[in-house]
């Protein structure tokens, strides 16, 4: 499974994007909210 790192500090955007990418794209998504962790 392809993995996507989503670096986004807006929790609402991160959640909706994560759901879409996982549910419809079949990707494994990890979310972090700041630059240094990205």
């Amino acid at each position, binding site marked *: 499974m392809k993995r996507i790192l989503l670096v986004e500090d807006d929790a609402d955007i991160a959640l909706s994007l994560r759901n879409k990418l996982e549910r419809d794209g079949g990707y494994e998504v990890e979310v972090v909210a700041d*630059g240094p962790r990205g």
Partner: protein
Amino acid sequence: MLDVNLPGLDGFEVCRRLRKVPATAAIPVIMLTARIGEDDRVRGLELGADDYITKPFSPKEALARVRAVLRRTERGAAEGEAIADEPLHVDLPSRQVRVGEREVALTRKEFDLLVELVRQRGRVLTRERLLETVWGYDFPGETRTVDVHVRRLRQKLGEPVDARLETVVGVGYRWRSAS
């Protein structure tokens, strides 16, 4: 996928650091931002971003763009071939470039631009076409991105190979093969 306005370290800097390290240099990057100025878009692309999505965007559009970027990346990796135009050697699977015995370190976009030009050797490629094929989507009005990358590419390739990347005034660029 990388937001530009991040706490601690902005997305431009994260992208720059990714591209600088060989182990992460080839990872596809899509920038997400509320900034809509041309300079920001150009900056992101010049730092090596593969695509740029302006907020607000729909998750559906984001998914389509992710798929498009991955298709382009996988197509390049799957070709499994080398291109040569002595003394230039381009190994596609490893994305390594040599001029004679000298290894040339290129950014992701510089490499993709070189491959496109050499593959289409002898043909004039417009800036718009290069933007579309190398950067992946129509990006009107920002063709200077191509000019910046061509200039850097020539510098890195050095003599005599740099002279093969010809400017066709008012149109675009052409790779003139040595053979």
